[in-house]
């Protein structure tokens, strides 16, 4: 039987550091999509399964075992961390292999991201713990501000190389601008 070797989406491409901003790939542990079916209220079931409350639009919550629940769309959240078993009233799917999870951190990470996304990244509208589905260049992405100067960026696995290229280019453009001033 063939022995398959697991590769992370951005294997061999990262980490990259330019002018104090680092882009690295992180292993989220697991990614589970939880979508409420119809008008089902899944708050209690999610709380029982993960220890985290159901985040509203643009919010994240945390639960047991480092679980981070990220709002992912209309009546739809993504659980990063321990796998989630079936929940009543929800469509639960394992998407661990479907997304590339990147972390952009360091002073200036916000300036780099601002070159790629139309999102308002100012702290007043995108505080720590905030999340958004938005565009990164031409890619659909999920961006979460996990620390003051650190962002988690999820793109489709098939876009990993493009995402790394675009973010690296934005990091270099920012560095070039800094050299002028």
């Amino acid at each position: 039987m063939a022995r398959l070797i697991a590769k992370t989406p951005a294997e061999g491409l990262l980490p990259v550091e330019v002018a104090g901003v680092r882009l690295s790939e992180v292993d989220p542990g697991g990614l589970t999509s939880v979508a409420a079916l119809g008008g089902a209220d899944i708050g209690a079931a999610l709380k029982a399964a993960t220890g985290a409350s159901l985040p509203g639009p643009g919010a994240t919550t945390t639960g047991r075992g480092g679980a981070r629940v990220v709002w992912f769309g209309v009546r739809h959240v993504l659980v990063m961390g321990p796998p989630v078993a079936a929940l009543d009233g929800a469509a639960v799917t394992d998407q661990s292999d479907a997304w590339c999870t990147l972390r952009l951190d360091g002073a200036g990470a916000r300036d780099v991201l601002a070159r790629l996304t139309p999102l308002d990244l100012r702290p007043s509208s995108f505080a720590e713990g905030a999340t958004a589905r938005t565009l990164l260049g031409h890619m659909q992405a999920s961006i979460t501000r996990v620390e003051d100067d650190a962002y988690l960026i999820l793109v489709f696995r098939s876009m990993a190389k493009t995402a790394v290229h675009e973010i690296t280019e934005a990091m270099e453009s920012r560095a070039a601008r800094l050299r002028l001033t």
Partner: protein
Amino acid sequence: MRLPCPCCGDRDIREFTYRGAALARPGEGAGIDRWDDYLHLRDNPAGAVRDLWYHGGGCGAWLVVERDTVTHAVDGARLAAEGL
């Protein structure tokens, strides 16, 4: 131009795709004239319009957006799932 997504807040136009006028679909058994009207006939008004936008670059919701083609003012948006 920015659209006020009920889930995401004000978002840039590049996250959205225009999906045509927000019209009620003809009911079961509707006549051919009613379907012809629904599929092909549009008013193209100068002024207030209601149209569908897909927030594909964001939360994935379909929205009914009320806007004005003369002033370019956007008066509001709500989820199409709540009814046209």
